[in-house]
């Protein structure tokens, strides 16, 4: 029995290693905000969502398979959450079934396995009931297959047969234990005995008047002997206990997989609800093969920013089909970093099989998504900033492949403009030549102007807008790079005066 809700005929591996650069990606795209929304406080959901986001498939067919299952989930959230709840509950309940003092004793294993099996059968009956009453309302390939399997494999005859076995296996051996207590109440010199020793009533007569000795009466609970007894009496039932325990493990595996694969959709449901509450749009994107290098979106926005703000945020329209370089320039605080994040998140969410934070999106899948963002000073002091940036870019170069997407945020701004531009220019040329698409946010005017002057149709230039009065619209428009970033506006905003418009504020007493 397989869940197969993530791939048409494959289990989802929640333990798989994230691809190279995943840590940087998580940080640069503020993925934690999205993961928080998907997890809704549940660490398990978070773990699955994280793996699935970072390891999204690169083929449109799987993406569409998942989109269908997610559409079903959005249409019937209560049913899907109920199935998930059953899986979660049963796994939780299994864990709560106490192994006993000595988990290696066959009778303990047997006793526990019977209890676990009863729990599992009850849960499987619930799944059957849900399949019976709701299967008709689902139309995705994934759910249709799942419900058909439940109905076929878990017939009434099957349940009846299992119940019979479990009743018979509820045999318990009459094991009797005896041991003496050693110094400090530590069990020493345990002797295994067949009959249960009758300890009460064997009171010892104490010599009266002798105060050179005192007697202490202690509890007669004797755990060590019980363990020893199990060792002897357990041999006969060892084999059957083992078989039943292994079967229980197999069923537990099914529930675990079901929980994992549904967690993926529950996470998407959670995020959808949260995003809907902000008023931002969501769409099922159209995944395309890598060849066309497509990326076109309407009202594309940063879902993490929307989730943080709790209100709709400015979206951007982008039409970058067939473009190998999107260069974003313009005003500080004009929404450039936000836009870059929205591109990266849209790509990740699409490949996960989720909706995207946009009114519409059609995009080529990418083989890998990499980010190269400016970093804080290296706390380990092993390198200077440019050195560190180059080392990271070299790392990316070692892993990136044709058909990948690279997001750069103010890369190579840690050296001066002329040299930063030259380094970036050479890297961009090589990357684009190798079939890698690059979105590049930069203040390097020298670089941006140089790229703009190139007679190439495969580059798109966006600029953060700025009103004549200096206010930002947080909207990007197609436009050529301009030679200033309006730092003077920010300066005026913070220090309360335009440059040269008067003396700076005096400090008290200085």
């Amino acid at each position, binding site marked *: 029995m397989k869940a197969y809700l993530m791939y048409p005929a494959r289990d989802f591996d929640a333990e798989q290693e994230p691809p190279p650069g995943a840590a940087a990606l998580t940080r640069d795209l503020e993925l934690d*905000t999205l993961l928080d929304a998907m997890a809704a406080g549940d660490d398990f959901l978070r773990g699955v969502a994280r793996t699935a986001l970072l390891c999204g498939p690169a083929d449109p067919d799987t993406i569409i398979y998942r989109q269908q299952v997610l559409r079903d989930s959005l249409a019937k959230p209560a049913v899907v959450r109920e199935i998930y709840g059953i899986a979660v509950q049963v796994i939780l309940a299994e864990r709560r079934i106490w192994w006993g003092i*000595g988990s*290696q004793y066959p009778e303990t294993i047997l006793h526990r396995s019977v209890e676990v099996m009863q729990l599992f059968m009850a849960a499987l009956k619930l799944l059957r009931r849900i399949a019976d009453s709701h299967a008709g309302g689902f139309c995705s390939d994934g759910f249709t297959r799942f419900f058909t399997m439940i109905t076929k494999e878990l017939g009434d005859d099957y349940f009846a047969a299992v119940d019979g076995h479990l009743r018979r296996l509820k045999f318990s051996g009459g094991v009797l234990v005896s041991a*003496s207590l050693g110094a*400090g109440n530590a*069990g*020493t*010199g345990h002797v295994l005995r067949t009959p249960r020793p009758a*300890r009460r009533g*064997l009171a*010892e007569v104490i010599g009266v008047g002798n*105060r050179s*000795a005192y*007697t*202490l*009466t*202690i509890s*007669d609970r004797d755990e060590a002997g019980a*363990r*020893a007894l199990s*060792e002897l009496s357990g041999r006969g039932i060892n084999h059957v206990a083992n078989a039943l325990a292994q079967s229980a493990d197999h069923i537990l595996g099914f529930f675990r997989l079901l929980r994992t694969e549904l967690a993926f959709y529950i996470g998407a449901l959670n995020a959808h609800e949260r995003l809907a509450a902000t008023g931002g749009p969501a769409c099922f994107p159209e995944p395309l093969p890598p060849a066309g290098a497509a990326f076109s979106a309407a009202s594309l926005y940063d879902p993490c*920013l929307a989730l*943080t703000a709790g209100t709709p945020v400015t979206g951007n329209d982008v039409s970058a089909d067939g473009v190998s370089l999107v260069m974003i320039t313009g005003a*500080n*605080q004009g929404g450039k970093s936000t836009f870059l994040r929205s591109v990266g998140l849209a790509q990740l969410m699409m490949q996960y099989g989720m909706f995207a934070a946009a009114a519409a999106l059609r995009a080529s899948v990418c083989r890998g998504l990499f980010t190269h963002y400016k*970093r*804080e*000073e290296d706390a380990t*002091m092993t*390198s*200077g900033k440019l*050195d560190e940036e*180059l080392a990271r*870019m*070299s790392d990316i170069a070692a892993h990136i492949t044709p058909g990948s997407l690279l997001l750069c945020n103010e890369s190579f*701004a*840690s*050296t*001066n*403009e002329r*040299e930063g531009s*030259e*380094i970036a220019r*050479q*890297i961009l040329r090589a990357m684009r*030549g*190798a079939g*890698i698409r690059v979105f590049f946010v930069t203040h390097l*005017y020298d670089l941006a102007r140089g790229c703009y002057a190139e007679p190439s149709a495969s580059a798109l230039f966006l600029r953060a807008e700025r009103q004549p009065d200096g206010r930002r619209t947080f909207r990007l428009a197609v436009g050529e790079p301009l*030679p*200033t*970033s309006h730092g003077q506006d*920010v*300066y005026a*905003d*913070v*220090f309360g005066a335009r*440059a040269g418009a008067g003396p700076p504020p005096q*400090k008290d*007493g200085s």
Partner: protein
Amino acid sequence: MFHSILFGDTPPAADLDSRPEPPFFHDLNLDQVTAWVTAGLGDYRLEPFFYTPLAAPGEISYRHEVFGDLAGEALLERVRAFAAGMRRVREELATARKLHYPRQRQRWFLESAATYCDAVTGLAADLRGAAITSRGFLGIREYLAGYVASDGFATLTAETTGLRADLAGVCYSMHIKGNRIRVRKYEGEDDYSEEVLAVFEKFRQGTVKDYRVRYPATQDMNHVEAGVLNLVAKLYPDEFAALDRYCERHAGYLDDTIARFDREIQFYLAYLAHIRPLQAAGLPFCFPRVSARSRQIRAEATFDLALALKLARDGEAVVTNDFHLGEGERVLVVTGPNQGGKTTLARTFGQLHHLARLGCPVPGRGAALYLCDEVYTHFEKEEDLATLSGKLHDDLVRFRDILDRATASSVIVMNEIFTSTTLDDAVFLGREMLAKIARIGALCVCVTFLDELASLDPACVSMVATVAPDNPAVRTYLVVRKPADGLAYAAALAARYGLGYDQLKGRLAS
């Protein structure tokens, strides 16, 4: 009367122990220094001492003298032995506090007092003949001499010794049968352990897993052991009555001044323990001349302490540098190639000024430093989505905060500011900031890629990180006083990482 080995007769502020880490610690990597120096010494709560600068040159020389005495290996060893004794006292007292049964607690308390008497008597004897000249050590010597000669201490020592001997004479035997334990004075019975083992040996069954429950060694006592102990106490009433009385009488045996000395001397020991290996590796430390008036500062063959501690662990060499500010000079502007040691020099400048006002030996062959009122740092921070504002804005806001608080007596360290904006903006903003700092009159070091700032003001002094003349890609980490020359050698660095166009093209094709 002697008060404190750290603060002499000037008690520190009452809030000493609740002080947070100063804001500049992280930027200057002083948080790392503090963490390394205090590692494993958590009980002493030394961090506040590193956070709390001294305000007067006299207080600084008080510590210099103590450090001077501790340069002798013999004294250092004796103080360490005392500290080890006091640590055991605390452990034994902690054990006494956490245990449940009164008679357990009493015995641990007695042991702690014995350890305390030994440690104090030992240190008093050690100091009697020691060659010490510092006010601090002369003070504690005199104090200890008086303390060990006092009636109170003599009584404590005598009673401790006597009672321990009496308790060592207590011996009892337990006869355990069924659920009863019979306790009597030890009467010379034979050891039955071997015989018992032999009796039960024949019950062993081939190679099986060991199901015996292991009873971990623990100080905790279960109720049975405690019950036995109570019976033993009945058998030896005089000894246990004496123990009762002892604990009541000596409850507060720990002397405040000695306990304070024990904590505070760790500041010296911990710092010395970390600079000793550096000194052994040839790196100089010196007692700086610290002036509250002269702003003409200098340091020869100095270095970044955090970096040196790290490199020393990795067995790597440390490059030392000189800097000075003469009459009318207040701002060091450091330019030059990336990874050339600029930031390191800036950190060194800041660290030295803080270490100087802690009264510590500072890195360098010789140094004259200014007793500043506060150190401020402005290092680049990563973008934070939560603030929903742009990086440049944040940078400027942090700048304004610094400028609002800094005085002519402050030290300001600025590292690579305004790299997120264009060259034009960066020059404009850099000029504005430096002009404001020059007006305040604070001592400042400014690391920048903007050569223009180096000659901005007569108070500015240009320093340049140098490269090896024969290979521009090789950094020397030497930062020297000379005019800014605009060389950054970034492209050579890029080539080192295989990120030149031709190199990268080849890598991406493979």
